[in-house]
């Protein structure tokens, strides 16, 4: 690591006002932090909601998943956008990450904090922002199934960005249920 060069740079760096994500979107940020603090309640709510969606699978399948994608996506985007500052990666892992959206990590890490986390728990890249993964760890400790954070997440499929994770998860659990012989 080039200490010398970094030294020069840090004295010259001009940070435009409002660059920090905390100041840039203070409301979004506050809600996001609230969601992590209420990870346990949201986990419960989410599980309920997944059950409801699964019940709707028959209907979705009849209308055609492609056709319901648009309206569902519109709702999903808004709800998750408000609650989690969601980036619509299309492969939601919120319940495995303490309800802290890993796509808000500047390095979009999906498996835990990088080595750069500051001593105060803030992010290496955005010094004003608490590390997304420090938050995730806290959130996961409050959750009932918080140890899901220890699961190794595969690389993101970039081609699914912007699609509905709710529908994908629903279709997948319906398929899993069907293959295990249960009623769908």
């Amino acid at each position: 690591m080039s200490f010398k060069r970094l030294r020069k740079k840090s004295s010259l760096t001009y940070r435009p006002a409002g660059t920090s994500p905390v100041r840039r979107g203070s409301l979004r940020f506050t809600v996001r932090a609230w969601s992590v603090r209420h990870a346990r309640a949201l986990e419960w709510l989410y599980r309920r909601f997944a059950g409801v969606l699964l019940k709707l699978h028959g209907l979705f399948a009849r209308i055609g998943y492609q056709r319901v994608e648009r309206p569902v996506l519109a709702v999903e985007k808004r709800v998750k956008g408000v609650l989690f500052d969601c980036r619509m990666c299309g492969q939601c892992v919120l319940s495995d990450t303490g309800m802290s959206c890993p796509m808000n990590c500047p390095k979009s890490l999906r498996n835990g904090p990088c080595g750069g986390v500051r001593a105060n728990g803030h992010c290496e890249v955005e010094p004003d922002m608490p590390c997304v993964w420090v938050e995730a760890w806290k959130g996961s400790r409050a959750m009932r199934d918080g140890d899901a954070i220890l699961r190794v997440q595969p690389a993101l499929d970039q081609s699914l960005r912007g699609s509905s994770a709710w529908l994908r998860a629903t279709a997948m659990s319906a398929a899993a249920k069907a293959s295990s012989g249960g009623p769908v």
Partner: protein
Amino acid sequence: MPEAFDPEDFSFVPEGHSSAGRLERVLRRGEFAVTAELNPPDSADPNKVYERGAVFDGWVDAINATDGSGANCHMSSVGICALLTRVGYAPVMQISCRDRNRIAIQGDVLGAAAMGVANILCLTGDGVQAGDQPGAKAVFDFDCMSLLAAIATMRDEGRFMSGRPITEPPRLFLGAAINPFAPPHDFRPLRLKKKIEAGAQFVQSQYCFDVAMLETYMARVRDLGLDERCFILVGVGPLASARAARWIRTNVPGIHIPDAIIERLEGARDQSREGANICIETMQQVKEMPGVSGVHVMAYRQEELVAEIVAKSGVLKGRRPWKPEPRPGDAAVIEAAAETQRILERAQSAQTHSPHTG
């Protein structure tokens, strides 16, 4: 006795090993391993790489080739490894997720393995904001965990992530980085467990300046039985001065330096000497720590100190790691090897004349 150089070694994977490399052999024999980080040149001159590798000759088991560390641009890790393997060195090729996507990285892995690279270290990578080109696009298509998993798939299942088969799978010893000194502290050992599950066989840590904090981490690691499942190399390095230490502490994320270390440096007449002494003491302490398999020396811009530090610490217990004997017909390599010899002699004589010896 230096181990003999047998070019055949690179095509021979011993029973129970996953690579043909020297580092894996040293570690699996139960020897305390020493690795060092090469300062990558800002130059297209291959001799720069040989010179910088030569200062470690006979003192380290493997040389890390960094991949744009600190997000600064230097000669690539693939390029450095290509040169180092020509001489027979055992490089650890670092791959950071910051600059390349999965297509580029999987290709590089095959290329590196074809050149004789036996060790790959999977890193997240520093953010682009830390480097000299903060306007760059940060890629992060993989994270270190999915990178480990992808390379393990290539090696163990002989296929790319897409499932397409690889006719000759790369035989590699897979590594990752750990930082026991950054929050969230209770998550760090579990993150190591995750890395092992993703495929890490050895890990190299961030600089250790706080042995007590490392001990806390290692105690948890031993509880989880992780030291049995992977080789842990602790990162060490000499601090040049109290001023440098203070600067690093505030400006380089992820490096934890306790006040006591800075005070000790400040109180010393020769601060850089004291920095080296602290490094030597740390090495001796971590060597005694159960579960630690080696040290990784990062002496940024003080690489010439490495031979002396390793010699004085006594961590090799008289063992002398391999040093190069070039293959005939390669003029540049032969020349570099001669230079290697000179630098080594200089380092050794400096060590015997040092007032601190003895």
